């Protein structure tokens, strides 16, 4: 039934091999892009079939293991290359291969004429492969392979323009930050493996077995340690405080990469991982609290930075960080389904936004190039009024913006609202709940503000580039626009699979399809909560409506403020900046977090290493080694001098020897 599952990751991998090995010979861009896209499309089709198959099973049987081959076996440790087909992974492969396919398609147009075209597509395929491996893997180790694989592809694609130092730096930064997370991930694996094995003789890292044995795990204690380790991994991969700084820098990569990797798929891996091991996280209230707080903080913090950025992609990048914060907030309040829901809708609208911005940049770049201008094609201060020049892009972009801002009816509204409601009403954090909700709501308002700020600065008003360049602005080709349209459509309607119960009831009991669909995945958590849930969450329909209204209101306020500042009264932002120069500088410079890291971690580390090398290794250790040699040589010099060449001295030496010998043995 699931015999073809292995095709899902394999097809992109084949694409990677073909393009990676032969791409240089093929030369024809259409063929290269075509192969790459076709492979991902193939994956998507197989994924659809898989989903279909899965849905044909009754709910409790929707968990299928597919073993490919035995990977590492050593003593009690065993890891297979095996896939897990369950609703969660199916949803993920659908999103990954679906959105992935669209972005591949988009890239054919976007990357047209780039040097290393084949390289780009092979990396992109490799990424798709790794991501699919990550979500399909049935054990922690295989997940880790995908986990690192996507990190690697991210590194490669961020550094795609490797001749630019900033790009190479950004790639390295991303990789290293991710590695810090991986450190946590690995420790999590070790601790989990060791704990279950040594205390319960269950030596496993396989998800299905872990889930089935999750009742062996205690609440808190060691599980807190394990989950915090895993969460460290998630913060690295999903750009949460404190490891988020790589993501904005990652915008050095081509825009479709940002869309695919740094918005839609890879960065959500952390969320996926927590959802995958929900039975573990639910057992540690402490970890959940940490996750929730960090998620909320990230959501708010990144949103503040997003308000002052001028680079169109950076705004989106901070927006991504912020939205990821939402997802973690959802995880932290135990609303795994909501988090996954937001993951999905976010994939749609954020991919659309990135691709839209890509279209804008593409167009701007072309125009500026024609005009021989050195202006920055990504700086929103150079844009404006593109609405008329690029109508399709504008419309899709606007739809996605509305979705992200949480305007009712659009997908973002449903998922975000679900999260905010859960944050308020969950049974885990007690008095913290209100704070979490407040931060989330505030971040939602900021999101609406900066997103509309972006829309207004880019598409409204007067075009701010030279008239000569302006003439060259034009709508993008169909292959670029088409994915935009699809994604915009999904951004609009994607939310309907997860309509909250209160709204569903209003419309004659439309069920929350997604929640039902995901139920088997979270059943262990629910069982746990059923047993241990000391106090259940709040169930107050009126309150839910009220909060919903509040958050919509906040979003609308954000939009209004953006409108008034960037369309109606354009002078205010400048005055504001003039009034609070320090604040603006701080926000504009991302609160100086990068500088902080440089100064308290990176630079001391380098200085310390220099000391270790030149001070310790060379002087102390090698000095000791050479010191021994030098001492011996010095002795040699002294001993030589005793050899005076004079017979009487030699005779004295002999006589001395005799006397010493005699006196020792006779006086003894």
């Amino acid at each position, binding site marked *: 039934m699931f015999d073809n599952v292995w095709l899902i990751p394999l097809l992109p991998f084949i694409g990677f091999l073909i393009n990676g090995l032969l791409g240089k010979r093929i030369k024809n861009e259409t063929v290269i892009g075509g192969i790459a896209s076709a492979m991902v499309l193939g994956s998507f089709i197989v994924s659809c079939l898989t989903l279909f198959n899965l849905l044909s099973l009754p709910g409790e049987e929707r968990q299928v293991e597919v073993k490919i081959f035995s990977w590492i076996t050593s*003593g009690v440790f065993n890891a297979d290359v095996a896939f897990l087909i369950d609703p969660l992974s199916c949803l993920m492969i659908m999103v990954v291969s679906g959105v992935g396919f669209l972005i591949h398609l988009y890239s054919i147009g976007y990357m047209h004429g780039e040097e290393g075209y084949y390289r780009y597509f092979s990396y992109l395929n490799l990424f798709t492969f790794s991501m699919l491996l990550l979500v399909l893997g049935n054990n922690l180790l295989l997940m880790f392979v995908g986990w690192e694989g996507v990190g690697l592809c991210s590194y490669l694609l961020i550094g795609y323009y490797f*001749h630019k130092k900033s790009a190479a730096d950004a790639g*390295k930064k991303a990789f290293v930050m991710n590695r810090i997370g991986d450190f946590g991930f690995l420790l999590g694996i*070790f601790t989990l*493996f060791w704990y279950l*094995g040594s205390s319960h003789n269950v030596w496993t890292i396989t998800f299905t077995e872990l889930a089935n044995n999750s009742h062996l795990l205690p609440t808190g204690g060691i599980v807190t340690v394990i989950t915090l380790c895993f969460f460290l991994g998630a913060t690295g991969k999903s750009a949460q405080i404190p490891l988020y700084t790589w993501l904005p820098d990652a915008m050095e990569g081509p825009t479709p990469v940002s869309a695919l990797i740094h918005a839609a798929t890879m960065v959500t891996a952390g969320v996926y991982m927590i959802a995958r091991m929900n039975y573990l996280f639910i057992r540690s209230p402490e970890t959940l609290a940490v996750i929730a707080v960090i998620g909320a903080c990230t959501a708010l913090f990144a949103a503040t930075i997003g308000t002052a950025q001028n680079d169109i992609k950076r705004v989106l990048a901070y927006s991504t960080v912020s939205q990821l914060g939402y997802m973690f907030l959802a995880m932290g309040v135990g609303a795994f389904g909501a988090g996954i829901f937001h993951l999905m809708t976010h994939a749609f609208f954020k991919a659309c936004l990135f691709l839209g911005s890509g279209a804008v940049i593409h167009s701007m770049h072309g125009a500026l190039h024609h005009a021989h201008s050195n202006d920055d094609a990504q700086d929103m201060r150079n844009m404006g009024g593109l609405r008329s020049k690029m109508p399709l892009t504008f419309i899709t972009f606007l739809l996605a913006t509305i979705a992200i801002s949480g305007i009712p009816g659009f997908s973002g509204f449903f998922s975000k609202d679900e999260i905010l409601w859960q944050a308020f009403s969950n049974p885990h954090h007690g008095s913290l709940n209100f704070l979490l909700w407040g931060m989330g709501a505030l971040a939602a308002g900021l999101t609406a503000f900066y997103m509309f700020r972006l829309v207004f600065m880019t598409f409204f008003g007067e075009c701010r580039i030279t008239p000569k360049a302006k003439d060259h602005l034009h709508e993008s080709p169909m292959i670029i626009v088409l994915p935009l349209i699809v994604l915009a459509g999904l951004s609009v309607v994607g939310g309907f699979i997860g309509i909250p119960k209160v709204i569903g009831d209003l419309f004659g009991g439309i069920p929350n399809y997604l929640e039902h669909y995901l139920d088997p995945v979270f059943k262990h958590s629910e069982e746990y909560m059923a047993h241990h849930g000391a106090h259940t969450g709040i169930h107050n329909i009126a309150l839910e409506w009220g909060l919903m209204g509040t958050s919509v209101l906040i979003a609308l306020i954000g939009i209004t403020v953006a409108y008034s500042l960037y369309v109606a009264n354009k002078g205010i932002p400048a005055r504001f900046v003039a009034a609070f120069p320090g604040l603006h500088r701080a926000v504009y410079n991302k609160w100086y977090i990068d500088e902080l890291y440089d100064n308290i971690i990176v630079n001391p580390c*380098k200085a310390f290493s220099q000391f270790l090398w030149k001070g310790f290794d060379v002087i102390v250790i090698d000095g000791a080694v050479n010191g021994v040699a030098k001492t011996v040589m010095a002795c040699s010099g002294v001993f030589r001098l005793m050899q005076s060449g004079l017979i009487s001295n030699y005779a004295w030496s002999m006589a001395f020897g005799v006397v010493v010998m005699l006196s020792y043995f006779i006086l003894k």
Partner: protein
Amino acid sequence: MSYILSLTTFLPILGVLLLFFIPKESKSVLRGFTFAVTLVTFLASLLILFGFQTNAEFQFVENVPWIAAGPFVMRYNIGVDGISLWLVILTTFIMPLSVLSTWKAVEDKVKEYMICLLILETSLIGAFISIDMFLFYIYWELMLIPMYFMIGIWGGKNRLYATMKFFIYTMVGSLLMLVAFIYLYMLGSQAGIPDFSVLHFYNLRIDPTIQVWMFMAFALAFAIKVPMFPLHTWLPDAHTEAPTAGSVILAAIMLKMGTYGYVRFAMPLFPEAAHRFAPLLATLAVIGIIYAALVAMVQEDVKKLVAYSSVAHLGFVMLGLFAFNVQGMTGSMLQMLNHGISTGALFLIVGFIYERRHTRLISDFGGLAKQMPVFATIFMIVTLSSIGVPGTNGFVGEFLILIGGYESELRWWAVVATSGVIFAAVYMLWMFQRVMFGELNNPKNQKLLDLDAREIAIMLPLVVLIFVMGVYPNPFIEKMDPAIQKLVAHIRPASMNAKILPAALQSLPVGHPAMPGHSGMEESTAPSAASGQLPAGHPGIPAEGQSSEPVVNPHESK
């Protein structure tokens, strides 16, 4: 077939004899011939691989009298088991590549160079297959000589210092070990052990206080060779000065001699002492991992950087060994192979750019990826392997080591060592970035040629192995697994006895008298049965020590 081990060992020496008859002017003949010899040796070693039965015993054993005088009996006693098998294959595999790598790099004194290479190969293989400890020692010392010449004659600017340091440093350690060898033999002969075969000595139950001294002597010698912090300073010097092939062999094979020494000699011979020293050695290993990574980070010379990375990698190997469990040991054995492949490849890569630019300073490069795409790709793959990215060989070994360490008493050490994965990424990628990425603004770099067919041919097998071992390591693990199981069983109960059954230990006879006339094969089955040790994975043991010591667990009962 029964002499296949000797054949493999001495084929290179045969090659040396024939090399004498090739005039030294015909360099390409010399090179080609040497390459052929190493290739044939590799093929011969494949016979060993394919004939190897997956069990814990020594195979292809040859055991003939050699020296018998005074209190000593030395025998030409050789054989492979799962532990040495892959190291032998690694040796024969790396050798042809090393020869290829010197095709252009060594123009001067080609004949002598090739002779050195071949003698080195013989001594390396010989050391790995020796069962007789005296024979091992002979090979162990013998291998210093060709390496000494290779660094000293074909090395870089500071080669004399480096080669002298390498030789004397290694010599100091191994001579102290020699004293311990002799002492061990004396103990053995008191207990009626008839020769130098290491298998006999496994049965010897040595007084723990004596074990401590002897373990120290062994451990020092091997630690120098590994090299472990703080005995590592000869390595960067030797590596930097050595010609490419020298560095490759040094890193890929010779350093393994140290870790192999621990596996084969230091730990199973003195299990109690090994346990006592485990915290110390693990600490040094972990310090080595972090320290070497930090120092590597700020190196200005690519080769030195790679040399320090070796120290870090071998720190992982040492940590895995002292986990005293199957995962850790397996990981260490794999990591030895991995390190051989990836660090060998890194040195080859450094050699390639050195041949082109005659500099190894990182600051002299930059942006090479544009000019040399194939090179960049291969370099990237090897770098990733060295970092231990999953899917490459480096990951499997490191992971098993860490998980093994984590399960053992060395949990906190493993935690710290895990942070090594971060540092590895930092120094390798930073170096890669500075060399390969950025603007191609040095005019000297703008005319560099990409790899030619020969160079690609050298790298291709390595790259393939990087992936094969990363994706499908089980065939490698399977062959070594029985031997490792047995080794772990041999080392572990000793400590358990010490902990749990001190009375039982006391009642054992001091030396287990070996029956005369036993061959190595027969004797090798003895350790688990002979000394009244508990069988591995005995279900009763964990139960006793479980509440306070969850570490003691039945690893072997899958």
